[in-house]
């Protein structure tokens, strides 16, 4: 698969941007001003970027608790995201949602929620709604390996196939649900591709740490969906570097080994792709440093915006319970 230089550089840039933002959050978290859970996606950036590079602004995205990468890759507003994590009035959910409830309607991000798999039928309904309204938006939904164990995963795939809905299901398999490994949750014979295919849904699997592979598979899938061929299921293996929830590393807990972690770290989606681009003379270190400088500047501005934004008034606690 050949990807043009411009796309390749963009894929790198957006992965780098997500990595730097997540690391900034990890760094600032200790200040105790981001007073909500954060589920960082460091190590998993390639899936968000590779998939979203195939989506248009008008396309919809819904996701789970580990959604910073998806939100940013789809074009979600960084200032509003950070302000939301800081619980500020200027946050994307006006301080009522936090890191787990991101939204940016301008970017087609209709919401992220942390109930495992709970977002999958909602996304399926978005695709159903666009179909009923005869719109041509594609809907993409991200979820983890554990979500495929929930009943609504099956229910949603069944309905999406029944109605040939324009939806892309993306499973990010990072092998753990919090600290519970796949081995205690799924029989080793289990094959999600076969499950999807048994329901009449096209399915592919790829290396979630290889952004070009993700990009290529998603491109094929989104093209098929746009042609009206119905839903598509993609599964990518990847690895979460930091703790399940929070800014630190948690390999010391013993639920996974340091050796495994280091193995996966060697397969860093960002570093490996950077090496490829440099070796291929597509990018040089000067350009990379410029990228980093630009992103750092953007992040500093966003952090400043978030920190200096006002908190919501206490009476706002009781607003937005009902819509007018």
């Amino acid at each position, binding site marked *: 698969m050949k990807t043009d230089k411009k796309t390749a550089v963009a894929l790198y840039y957006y992965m780098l941007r997500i990595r730097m933002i997540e690391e900034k959050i990890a760094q600032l978290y200790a200040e105790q001003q981001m007073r909500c859970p954060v589920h960082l996606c460091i190590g998993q950036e390639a899936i968000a970027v590779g998939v979203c590079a195939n989506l248009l602004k008008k396309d919809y995205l819904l996701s789970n608790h580990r959604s910073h990468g998806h939100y940013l890759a789809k074009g979600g507003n960084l200032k509003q995201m950070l302000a939301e994590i800081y619980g500020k009035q200027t946050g994307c959910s006006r301080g009522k949602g936090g890191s787990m409830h991101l939204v940016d309607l301008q970017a087609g991000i209709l919401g992220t929620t942390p109930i495992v798999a709970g977002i999958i039928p909602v996304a399926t309904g*978005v695709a159903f709604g666009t179909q009923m309204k005869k719109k041509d938006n594609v809907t993409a939904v991200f979820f983890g390996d554990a979500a495929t164990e929930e009943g609504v995963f099956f229910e949603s795939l069944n309905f999406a196939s029944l109605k040939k809905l324009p939806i892309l299901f993306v499973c990010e398999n990072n092998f753990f649900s919090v600290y519970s490994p796949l081995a205690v949750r799924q029989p080793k014979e289990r094959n999600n591709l076969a499950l999807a295919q048994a329901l009449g849904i096209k399915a592919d699997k790829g290396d979630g740490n290889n952004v070009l592979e993700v990009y290529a598979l998603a491109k094929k899938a989104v093209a098929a969906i746009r042609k009206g061929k119905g839903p598509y299921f993609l599964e990518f293996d990847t690895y979460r570097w930091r703790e399940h929830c929070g800014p630190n590393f948690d390999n010391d807990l013993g639920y996974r080994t340091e050796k495994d972690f280091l193995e996966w770290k060697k397969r860093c989606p960002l570093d490996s792709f950077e090496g490829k681009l440099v070796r291929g003379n597509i990018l040089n270190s000067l350009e990379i440093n410029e990228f980093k400088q630009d992103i750092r500047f953007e992040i500093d501005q966003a952090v400043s915006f978030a920190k200096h934004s006002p908190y919501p008034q206490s009476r706002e606690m009781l607003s937005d319970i009902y819509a007018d």
Partner: protein
Amino acid sequence: MQDDRSVYIMGLGVTDPKGVFGTTVGLEKKFGSKRVLDMPVAENGMTGIAIGSALVGMRPILTHQRIDFMLLSLDQIINNAAKWHYMFGGKMKIPIVIRLLVGRGWGQGPQHSQSLQALFAHIPGLKVVMPATPYDAKGLLVSAIEDNNPVIFIEHRWLHNTLGNVPSEKYRIPLGKAKVVKEGKDLTIVSSSYTTLEAIKVAELLKKYGINIEVIDLRTIKPLDIDTIEKSIKKTGRLIVVDSAWGSFGVAAEILAQIAERAYHLLKSAPQRITFPDAPTPTGWALSNHYYPQIQDIVNSVRKMLKLNQQNQKHPGVVAGIPLDVPDATFKGPF
């Protein structure tokens, strides 16, 4: 559905020949199979799908033939529908109506006749509607469909057999407003859905004995119209709440608590609840006959509160030749 193309109705049996006890018969022919559709037996997933469609401008009506079936979808209702508007800072809305039918009698039993209004009323973000009359059913349903929030619309199965004047034109009955259906000065009975019919009968019966009961039909459980209830108690000083559900932690308990908090000084005697016993509904008619409070129980409660002579006629299961597990004498079962 005629006025708004984004309204669609979905549920098991919506398009089958019986059309959810006749309530959806003919709709598919009129509005097409894209807007009137049956669905997979996947209550939770389909509720999420209805919610998702609402995010892009649809106004779904989801129908369940028994309230008990929809318990599978509590995750989507409570975690998503009820909170979406709030947790995303008011940026989106979920205009969805969930019609739930409550069974009663003819052996509906533990998993076909639960009354769960209190469960939904407990959740911020939901509205809960329980019509009592055919006229109200239409007006409240129109308001529910036009409302921009998730509305739980609970229909008592026995009310499907009642008759009443229903204008053919569209009209609305506002959500959150109770109705004084009988005026009286001696005692207030607050009721909803089927119990409103019972309360009216009690009021009519006792009027012959010179007792004037004020009957308030809640119509909407949530938001609760406590002002109308308080206003009535200012006049009567006495309160009985009849709720077709379990007593503990229920709607009747909530009304008593709110009145105790804000109008304790108006009460001439301790308020009373008339509810189901705290037990699942038994199936066999010998047991279920004694499960549901009867008109006589309400009468006895009124007499006790007014310190009148007790008339404790405990029904043996058949009153005036009609078994208590059917809505009326013409009913031959099954539901």
